């Protein structure tokens, strides 16, 4: 399982990549691995307002339907519509092709609540013990 260096992470296994006032978000390689084959993603809708740590999307896999929480508050600018027909992209490439949405960040200060890659690595190691 990989953890990408340049991203920020939540305890619920979402990642965020901040670029100015925008953030791309998705779920981590750890998350996709735990969920198994992903069959459907109910993506955040462009224009929707999302709040940090609150529900923004749902992932259905062969094992379960899981809620995905927004890593940062803001407005959804676009969603990765490729995932509608190819949800397996999240299994194959959780940090690149499998991104979920781009959010216009409402409060950049919220990033202090997220983990960096070193902290997240330690966090998931703690979980698997």
């Amino acid at each position, binding site marked *: 399982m990989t953890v990408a260096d340049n991203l920020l992470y939540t305890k619920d296994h979402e990642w965020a990549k901040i670029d100015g006032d925008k953030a791309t978000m998705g779920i981590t390689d750890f998350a996709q691995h735990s969920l198994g084959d992903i069959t*459907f993603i*109910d993506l955040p809708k462009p*224009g*929707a307002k999302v709040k940090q740590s609150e*529900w923004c999307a*749902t992932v*259905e896999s062969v094992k*379960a*339907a899981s*809620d995905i929480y927004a890593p940062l508050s803001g407005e959804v600018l676009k969603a990765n519509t490729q995932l509608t027909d190819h949800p397996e992209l999240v299994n194959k490439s959780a940090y690149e092709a499998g991104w979920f949405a781009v959010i216009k960040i409402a409060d950049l200060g919220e990033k202090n609540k997220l983990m960096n890659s070193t902290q997240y690595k330690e966090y998931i190691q703690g979980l698997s013990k």
Partner: protein
Amino acid sequence: MNYIPHTESEIKEMLKVIGVASVEDLFKHIPGELRPKSFNIPEGKSEFEVVEYLKLLSRKNATSLVDFVGGGFYDHYIPSAVDALACRSEFYTAYTPYQPECSQGWLQAIYEYQTVICELTGLDVSNASLYDGGTALYEAAMMAVRLTGRKKIIVDSGVSLIYRTMLYSYTSNLSIEFVETPVVHGQSCREDIYKHLDDHTAAVIVQNPNFFGAVDDFSDIVERVHKSGALAIASVYPVSLGLLKSPGEMGVDIATGEGQSLGIPLSFGGPYLGFIAVKKEHMRQLPGRIVGVTVDKDNKRGFVLTLQAREQHIRRERATSNICSNEALCALRALIYTSLLGKSGFQELARLNYQKAEFAKTTLDKVSGVKVKRSAPTFNEFTICLPKNADEVVYRMINKGFACGFPLGRFYKGLDNYLLVAVTEKRTKEEIVQFANSLEAALCN
């Protein structure tokens, strides 16, 4: 599913495990004043006496009237095989079984029912059924709200008042805005629908045939509705689909309807059958159970409940609906009924209904004082205008042995002299002629 009763010792054992003294104690938390005290039957009567008393009461019902009443529920013939098969003990339950995959026969029946509904409506995906036509229409409206993220719904007033009332009461705490558009010359007023259609509109709801019996082709409305990013919902009468253009052919997104006509007897309030079918792109928002077909590890065909992530036991408060069951027994009846008729039989049934209604129109037109409304084509139901109050005529006709129709004044202001008349395949030529003669007599004095 056979009935296996618990033994006295098993009951005692179960009660002991949960720490309750008696079965009666399980209901202790219901306050005494809310628990039934009696069935309003005099005490100390024998079973025989009670049965005789109930029979006496039941004789007050008029059961031998020749039925020309429709209004959404119709007097169709039900072949004996429907009862014989649906009453088999393996099938006799109102619900999807609780361990569904153990009941492959049941799941196959529901899967085939879904196939029938898809073929009738011309749409891609049907669920395992809902309670009745009204709840199905409510679920369709809520689907449109979820799919579009909009909260305004335009409802044609040709949609049954029963369904409209259910829509408004189910959504009374959901801040959904409803706009009703008028029916002009029996048909949906395009101009009014388009006037209200905007980028806040989630859906436009129409009915075919509408409550006045008028048949319409909604393709033009559907096209405009889609241009504004809204969904088109049609409530349809399933028997009419043996003859009329299907919702799928009109481009409708969600079709719903009352399935009573498909082998389910008329009764006060049901149990009836709600059906709903949608385009494939909307299936993730379809409520209720859906049965799918798959293969097992040995490549043998099997049936499963599918797309369950939409449902309450998994998605909790974000489920598509609080409905986790279906109207299984009524759906089974609909399946048996449509299977017995087959495709050509079903088309023949629809043609018979249409032709008999057309014959009735011609016959009633000759009754002096009666005017058959002909501003729009109809299927098996049509509106007539009487020279006096329709309610009064209905009572007079009961004395002549006819349930002569539905007085439109009960649902629509200013239509007190209008009567809605339905003619199914069960009505004979003689009955129709007699009906016209009796109506003539009823209007005379």
